[in-house]
């Protein structure tokens, strides 16, 4: 029997996909707990319930292979539940079964026939699905590659192209910097970074690539086989969120009140009574605000949706690296807007992977902690590993030509640490063990900034590292500071602003490196926002200043006027607007004008050549 023989409404399928994904996530988590405490009957029962629910749901939907496998796993569990403990061999078998169930769920979601897993289907005593030593990673592994010239100097373009061609031949390039098109356009890179899905095991993949690499040095790391990939998208299949019946009731009630209010407004308008009209409008404002809060809360999803698979990820990566790592999670009940939650997975995963690969040496603890702080969410990934050596980072940055020795000496300790977030900054393999880190840190920073947040780093040699992502909790409506620049309004998310100033003309001075505001506590470098944005405007006679952070350094953006703070509905930008640096959204103002929202750090990086700031890259 197949699912096609049923005529269940399409909504049931979506619900099945969502709930089955949650049960599979729960299975992964419970197996981890049982591995540590095999006699934990409470977890064993919970695992049994998850498998049982999965079996029932799959059978109801007509997904027979999935139901049959769940039934087998249930048999295994039933036997060991009677014995009161789950042996290690059974855990491995259940884990393999869980991986096959995940694959089948992916097949169902994609509309494909359920994949086979015959070895598991034949019974509890069967061989595991992925025997050791097999050269293929089932379903393809996800690799991260870094390619640099083996020796100093440049390497002919043909070698780069040959390697990229081999990558494309053997697997799928998920991302590649520089893009193959750029290479094809004769742009000689100094370094290539790629995410690559390939069905070959790491040893074989490495051998194949080395074979064609010639004078290039290839570093290849298997980051996540499919079974341990975070999948927030599945739980949010079709961009859905679950809404409680109580919330729906409140929305219905509010809608009813708005309908009533419309009558009230019409009556007041008919009477021509300004007083009655004002009163009705005030009530309308209150209702609208309430409605907005309720709708926004409907979009909020608990952080645990994405963190519940971290234990499995950490365990798998730690095992592969031969390390003993304990993961601690806290604050994962905090809720975030669905869009932010989905987008935070990649930076979160990068940060955790960095902690495992480069932070902790042989054993240690990773703490993932979420704390709500004045409308923002602080999501921290802290390890108690080797930490980072600021002085070594400075030296490496100078040696690699990111900045001059004198510029490096001027950096504050925080600025020095943030150097590891620069694209292309060398990784642990090229830096000494005590100082190295940085794989993927530019991706973490970019990911967080694209969400309207920012990244903070804390680290000391021998005392571990804390990567702190400061995130907005909602994106649909957010507080924005509107300013006037070149006669047009533009906005800054308030989370990206340190402060604002309206200095007296006497406080402004033109120094050697440009304008500065002479404040009591500092000389603040100033940059005309109109120059950055390429807008024809003069330096304002009575400028206002928006103080922002650029790689840990305070800078003032000079604008014509501060128009005030507003809660605005942020429209996301599509291609090609999403390619313009420094833009993170747009909003339409009450008068119909568009105000683009600016992300200061990216904007300053992109415009550094125009305004004479140190460039971000060599």
């Amino acid at each position, binding site marked *: 029997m197949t699912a096609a023989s049923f005529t269940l409404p399409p909504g049931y399928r979506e619900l099945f996909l969502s709930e089955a994904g949650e049960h599979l996530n729960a299975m992964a988590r419970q197996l981890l707990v049982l591995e540590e405490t095999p006699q934990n009957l409470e977890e064993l029962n919970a695992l049994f319930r998850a498998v049982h629910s999965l079996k029932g749901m799959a059978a109801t939907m007509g997904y027979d292979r999935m139901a049959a496998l769940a039934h087998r796993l249930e048999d295994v569990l039933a036997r060991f539940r009677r014995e009161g403990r789950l042996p290690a061999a059974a855990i491995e078998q259940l884990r393999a079964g869980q991986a096959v169930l995940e694959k089948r769920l992916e097949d169902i979601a994609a509309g494909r026939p359920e994949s086979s897993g015959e070895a598991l289907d034949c019974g509890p005593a069967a061989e595991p699905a992925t025997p050791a030593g097999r050269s293929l990673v089932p379903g393809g592994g996800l690799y991260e590659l870094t390619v640099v010239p083996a020796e100093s100097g440049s390497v002919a373009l043909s070698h780069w192209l040959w390697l990229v061609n081999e990558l494309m031949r053997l697997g799928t390039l998920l991302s590649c910097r520089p893009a193959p098109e750029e290479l094809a356009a004769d742009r000689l890179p100094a370094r290539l970074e790629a995410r690559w899905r390939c069905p070959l095991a790491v040893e074989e993949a490495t051998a194949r690539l080395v074979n064609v690499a010639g004078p290039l040095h290839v570093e290849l790391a298997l980051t996540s086989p499919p079974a341990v990939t975070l999948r927030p998208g599945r739980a949010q299949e079709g961009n859905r969120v679950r809404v409680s019946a109580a919330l729906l009731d409140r929305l219905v009630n509010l809608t009813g009140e708005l309908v009533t209010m419309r009558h009230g407004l019409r009556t007041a308008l008919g009477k021509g009574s300004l007083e009655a009209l004002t009163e009705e409008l005030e009530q309308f404002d209150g209702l609208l605000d309430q409605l907005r809060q309720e709708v926004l809360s409907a979009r909020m999803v608990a952080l645990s949706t994405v963190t519940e698979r971290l234990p499995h990820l950490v365990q798998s990566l730690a095992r592969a690296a031969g390390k003993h790592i304990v993961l601690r999670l806290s604050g994962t009940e905090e809720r975030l807007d669905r869009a932010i939650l989905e987008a935070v997975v990649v930076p979160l995963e990068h940060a955790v992977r960095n902690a495992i690969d480069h932070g902790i040496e042989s054993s240690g603890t990773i703490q993932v902690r979420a704390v709500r702080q004045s409308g923002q969410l602080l999501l921290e990934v802290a390890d108690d590993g080797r930490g980072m050596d600021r002085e070594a980072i400075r030296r490496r940055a100078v040696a690699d030509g990111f900045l001059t020795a004198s510029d490096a000496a001027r950096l504050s300790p925080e600025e020095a640490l943030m150097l590891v977030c620069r694209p292309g900054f060398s990784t642990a393999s090229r830096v000494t063990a005590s100082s190295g880190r940085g794989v993927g840190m530019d991706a973490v920073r970019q990911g967080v900034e694209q969400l309207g947040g920012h990244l903070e780093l804390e680290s000391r040699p021998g005392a571990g590292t804390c990567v702190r992502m400061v995130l907005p909790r909602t994106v649909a409506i957010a507080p924005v500071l509107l300013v006037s620049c070149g006669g*047009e309004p*533009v906005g800054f998310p308030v989370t990206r602003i340190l402060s604002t100033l309206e200095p007296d003309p006497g406080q402004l001075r033109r120094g050697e490196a440009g304008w500065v505001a002479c404040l009591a506590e500092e000389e603040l470098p100033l940059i005309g926002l109109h120059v950055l944005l390429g807008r024809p405007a003069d330096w304002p006679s009575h400028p206002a200043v928006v103080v922002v952070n650029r790689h840990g350094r305070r800078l003032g953006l000079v604008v014509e006027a501060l128009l005030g703070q507003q809660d605005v509905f942020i429209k996301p930008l599509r291609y090609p607007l999403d390619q*313009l640096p420094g833009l993170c959204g747009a909003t339409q103002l009450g008068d119909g004008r568009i105000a*683009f929202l600016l992300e200061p750090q990216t904007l300053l990086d992109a415009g550094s050549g125009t305004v004479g700031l140190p460039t971000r890259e060599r």
Partner: protein
Amino acid sequence: MSQALLLSAGRRLVGFELGQLGEIVQDRRVQALPMAPPGFIGAVSVQGEVLPVIELATLLGEQPTVHDRRLVVVSAPQLAVALAVGAVHGLCSLTLAAQPLAGTLAGNWEGRVFPTTRGIAVLLDVARLRRSLDECLAAATWRGRA
């Protein structure tokens, strides 16, 4: 028989298949677009979405002429832009299958041409428009600075 919207961009006649066009809007306030590369002349709001206004002639490597007051909205899953063009001439039928453009005349942009009463027109599609925008973005000066 399919139809195309016939436009002028610089000295060229171009046609866009109707299925790839959203609408034609008129007298919209075009606002400045920060960090705009050449060819991006501003932004407009169309049906609640913020779209860039692209000078079609610049993308075709032509000198821009005076703009029509109308903007042609291209709306496809992979691309949504408002095109500023020299003139919107109206609909024309693709009575003959559009033919590949021969020899050295064929650039990145043009693949097929078709005859109209105003002359030979180039048939454009979203994929070619997108390729050209990619090139324009890749060549933008801030790319070199970033």
